[in-house]
């Protein structure tokens, strides 16, 4: 698991390689969420990513939203709450909720 500092170094390396990137950051957690506030996920325009904002439950949705943020340049706030683990929805099976800020690196 990469620490925030390593994820940021990856973000800079990708930018220097000419890739467009967005950064997702956990800004709030409630209940039994697996990754603390400040956890980062860096996403490239092609969908490559490093880091994590959850135990893997919501990364797919965040990567997809981050690609939109790279295209639009508009930062967004994403809320994820507990959903039934059997439901075919994006959500956190752990019972917690998290808020994730997604921004493009300019």
């Amino acid at each position, binding site marked *: 698991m990469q620490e925030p*500092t390593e994820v*940021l*170094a990856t973000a*800079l390396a990708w*930018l220097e390689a000419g890739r467009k990137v967005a*950064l997702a950051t956990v800004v709030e957690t409630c209940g039994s969420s697996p990754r603390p*506030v400040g956890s980062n996920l860096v996403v490239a325009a092609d969908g490559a990513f490093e880091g994590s904002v959850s135990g893997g439950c919501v990364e797919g949705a965040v990567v997809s939203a981050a690609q939109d943020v790279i295209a639009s340049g508009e*930062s967004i706030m994403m809320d994820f709450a507990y959903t039934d683990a059997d439901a075919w929805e994006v959500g956190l099976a752990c019972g917690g909720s998290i808020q994730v*800020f997604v921004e493009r690196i*300019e």
Partner: protein
Amino acid sequence: MKRELLGALVAAQHRKQPAVLVRGLTTGKHCVVTREESLGDLDDIDPVVVDAARAALDSDGARTIEAAGERYLVQTLASKPRMLIVGAVHIAQSLIPMAMQAGYEIILIDPRTAFANPERFPNIRIDNRWPHEAMSEFELDARTAIVALSHDPKIDEPALQAAMDSNVFYIGALGSRGNHAKRLERLAALGYSKAQLSRVHGPIGLSLGGRSPAEIAVAILAQVIQSRHQPTSG
């Protein structure tokens, strides 16, 4: 966030200095605060928040604060915790990659160049001075762990003395129960108190029952992690 701020964060990391990143979560304003400088949208961020960021240089983690109707994430990007390993032995070869995975910066100290050399330990910082000399160069602070593995009193014990004279969060020494008792007697004879000696974990590592170098390395790293995050449970 602007790329120059990201660059400043990564540069601080390379200098092994903490940095604090402030994000305005609705305005999209950012600033970075280090011990040397503050940069970014400082005119657009409430000074109370910039002060909170300066105070956060000495802490870990991240939190949100509200000021003047805006919500900010104030995130400390601390330097890596450090592990000084004394003794370039077989267990060190297993422990180093595991500790690096767990986020530690590694410095390997051993005056025996036959043991501590780049062929046996590629891509890490090796110091071939005697421990009392080598360790005087490093700030032995509360983000540092000291792991003595040489099994040779004249190498391990000067390192343990430097460790006990400092504020490091973990001290451990390889050796059987009997050897550890003798080691503590020798250190007590040099004037170290019971409280100081009780900081030395020996036999080193959590009791997992493993015998191979890799299994012992897991036990050591587990104990270091426990000491860092649950200092009272060790």
